[in-house]
């Protein structure tokens, strides 16, 4: 109970001085307390060294996390970043190949747009192909790969995965979003997938 009251007094971002003032304690006593709370998981710190140390204090325990889709997308997208609307964590092997498939499944404009950057970091095309087939989204992967190729340097897709026949099923990356950019007509025709982006959208993801 006492711990809860202490945490409530200093909840949020604090420096050692502001925390000491809020608790009406000396700097050293506050430091000892914050160090104890940090061990218990209520406090995380940033900065230190040349920078001023900032303490993030929460009533809830701040757990260490494993990276998920949003972390991978933000890691590989140099300019455009996403604000996650839920906490996605993957406990196990997770890289750009898996994140690409998850991004397509979200059906979110921004997430799919940012995922184009992943094509520069895909090493295992065999894995992408297998995952895409399992999730029934190979057409979308192929179309997005061709769009990404027009704007960024990407790792080439293995030739045997390039389709020789036409796809019968028409796929909408996003419902009701048709291809309006002339440059993408050929990609749409080849993969039978509508591309919801305009050139301006892609420029936003560039360096």
């Amino acid at each position, binding site marked *: 109970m006492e711990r*809860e009251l202490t945490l409530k007094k200093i*909840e949020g971002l604090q420096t050692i001085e502001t925390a000491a003032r809020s608790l009406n304690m000396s700097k050293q006593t506050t430091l000892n307390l914050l160090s104890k709370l940090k061990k218990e*998981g209520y406090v995380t710190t940033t900065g230190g060294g040349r920078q001023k140390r900032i303490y993030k204090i*929460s*009533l*809830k*325990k*701040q*757990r260490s996390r494993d990276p*998920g889709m949003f972390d991978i997308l933000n890691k590989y997208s140099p300019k455009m970043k996403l604000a996650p609307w*839920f*906490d*996605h*964590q*993957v*406990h*196990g*092997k*997770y890289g750009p190949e*898996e994140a690409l498939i998850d991004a397509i499944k979200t059906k979110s404009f921004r997430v799919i747009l940012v995922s184009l950057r992943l094509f520069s970091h895909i090493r295992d095309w065999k894995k992408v192909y297998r995952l895409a087939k399992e999730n029934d989204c190979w057409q979308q992967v192929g179309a997005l790969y061709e769009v990404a190729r027009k704007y960024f340097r990407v790792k080439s897709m293995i030739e045997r995965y390039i389709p020789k026949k036409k796809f019968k099923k028409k796929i909408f990356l996003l419902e009701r979003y048709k291809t309006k950019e002339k440059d993408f007509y050929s990609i749409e025709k080849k993969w039978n997938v509508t591309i919801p982006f305009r050139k301006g959208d892609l420029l936003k993801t560039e360096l």
Partner: protein
Amino acid sequence: MITYHDQIELFTLMSKQLKRDVVCYAFGGNAMMFYGYKDETKDVDLLFEDEKGRQDFIEALKEAGYKETSLFKIYTEDKVKEKNAPLMFKRGEGRFDLFVKKIFRTVLSPKMKEDLEAVHDFKDKFNLKVNVLKKEHLVFLKAVTSRQNDFDDIKTIVKKEKHFDWQYFVDEVVWQYQNGNDWAVLDAEKMMKELKEYVFIEEKYSKQLYAALK
């Protein structure tokens, strides 16, 4: 007792035993651990969308040494008799309560499916996806399961959360009531009445619940 790290290891182990991808929803003390509200729990409450998913998970549990156990002692008699009561599996101090489609009379609402707090994927050959429900849904489900300690958990959530959306909570209660959970409003109203001793809840929310009953 199951700690947060035990839980992560348990789910990782389950994912290794699965024979296909399984999706489930965490809503009990285990969900509270994901949030950081508490450090350990007696029971892991999971809801599955279909019986097949639950059966796959049960097979994995059995391989890990868990055995089915009786619901008496844990749930009240009327809850045990309910059609949608859970299957319970125990090993030592740890317990799994596995629901399918419904938690007693509570349906997995569209809002519960859409507005998730977190998604934890445990990837091995197959994927165990654990969706963590929003705090407002956790409070509602704790109000309807009415086990020992459930009220204390509700108190913990509401006290530790700066922004608890009571309007969102009431909307969910009313939706559940309108979709066949006759006890939703009564259980929620009872819980809110008790909770008012500890936290401030605006009167308008209770009024909205009474209005739904008319």
